[in-house]
């Protein structure tokens, strides 16, 4: 199957944008509505039978999730990546999309993973439940608005490490350039309300580091 033939099949889908990256890679951008049609078409007509992964990207500024379906053909030795964007939803009304489990059985695994990490519900997927993070009860952790650093600061305690011999070295002008505590407080967001404050603190930490570096030289 050459380039013209595959284009002919793909162009049957409305509003499709095709980009031939390489001989073995085709990027396709489609609407959320026509993605299942596209997958069915390339599976039935063009031997793309292996769904190797589903990827999710959180575009928080656009309030959208991007779903990428990677489908491989053993005969063509070519990977079609179908990109689509869905509404990001909110906490009360989480994002929803249709499952492709009826077309590709491995989708069960990938969709369950995305459900856990991003909170996207796939309608028609057989097991929309906890998968790997069985101990986790918070928001889906891969969301961009989940602040892992703030969570860590609230949940865990840290080991202090200030032995006497280190103090001796520090008195002589050596020791640790930037202490772990300083890095942690720079990233500590749960008592800093704005991003500006946080950036400021981080910049201060970087500055302190530079100062030490300069001093060493």
């Amino acid at each position: 199957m050459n380039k013209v033939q595959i284009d002919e099949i793909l162009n049957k889908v409305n509003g499709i944008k095709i980009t031939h990256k390489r001989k073995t890679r085709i990027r396709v951008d489609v609407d959320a509505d026509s993605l299942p049609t596209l997958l069915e078409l390339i599976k039935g007509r063009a031997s793309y039978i292996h769904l190797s992964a589903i990827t999710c990207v959180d575009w928080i500024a656009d309030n959208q999730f991007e779903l990428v379906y990677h489908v491989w053909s053993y005969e063509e030795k070519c990977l079609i990546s179908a990109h689509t964007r869905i509404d990001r939803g909110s906490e009360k009304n989480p994002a929803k999309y249709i499952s492709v489990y009826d077309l590709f059985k491995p989708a069960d695994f990938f969709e369950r993973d995305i459900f856990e990490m991003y909170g996207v519900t796939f309608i028609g997927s057989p097991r929309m439940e906890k998968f790997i993070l069985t101990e986790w009860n918070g928001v889906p952790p891969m969301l961009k608005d989940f602040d892992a650093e703030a969570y860590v600061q609230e949940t865990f305690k840290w080991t202090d490490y200030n032995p006497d011999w280190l103090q001796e070295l520090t008195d002589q002008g050596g020791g640790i350039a930037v202490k772990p505590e300083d890095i942690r407080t720079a990233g500590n967001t749960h008592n800093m309300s704005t991003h500006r404050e946080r950036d400021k603190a981080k910049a201060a930490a970087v500055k302190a580091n530079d100062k030490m570096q300069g001093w060493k030289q």
Partner: protein
Amino acid sequence: MKKELKIKQKERTNPLAHVFDDFIRFCQSKSLFMLHYCTGCGAIELPPAMTSRFDMERLGIQPMVTPRQADILLITGYVSIKTLKRVILTYEQMQSPKYVIGICSCTVNGGMYWQSYATAKKLNEYMPVDVYIAGCMPRPEAVMAGLQRLKDNIRNDKKEHKGSAWKDYFKRYDYYLGNQQALFGEDWQTPTDIIAEAKLYGLETEETYGKHTKLLEKHQTPLLPQEMRIK
């Protein structure tokens, strides 16, 4: 500073008791069986440490396959919350005296994964740790040095009291259980009855009990043999 916790000690009438104790400590330090729970990347340093290049066996330390027959629990690398549950179950199955060694920076303070929501940071909040071997990752020499330190600690336990961290788990069970409950939820329960064991070893103190153990008593179900079946 930790305050001294009093335990009810049995009266010892044998005049040679301390001689026997010394002898037992000597023997213990010379023959240790190690269970390596390889959670993270630090495990890669253990094969050279155990095999002919560095040869751990000349220190009297051998690998063991089951927690029930092991003395040392070696935790190599980051401990995720999910793994921590298994580590605690493994630790509680081991017979006393038991020793824990945390290898790599991750067990000390989260290491390079300190920002991660999924890894536990301080191992000694959940179980008493005898020796930490820091480094990312420590070379086999450092592992050997750490084990040598542990051996010395066991040998000199009478003077320095560094080789009996395992007693702390029974003495301050409420503290450790509280930290575990904070992560795993209030209905956390292990199949081992630590309080009964504390009584057996004579290591009950006032801090063995507390509000966390009370919480445990509420929902603790007696142990039943598990049904074996394939789903």
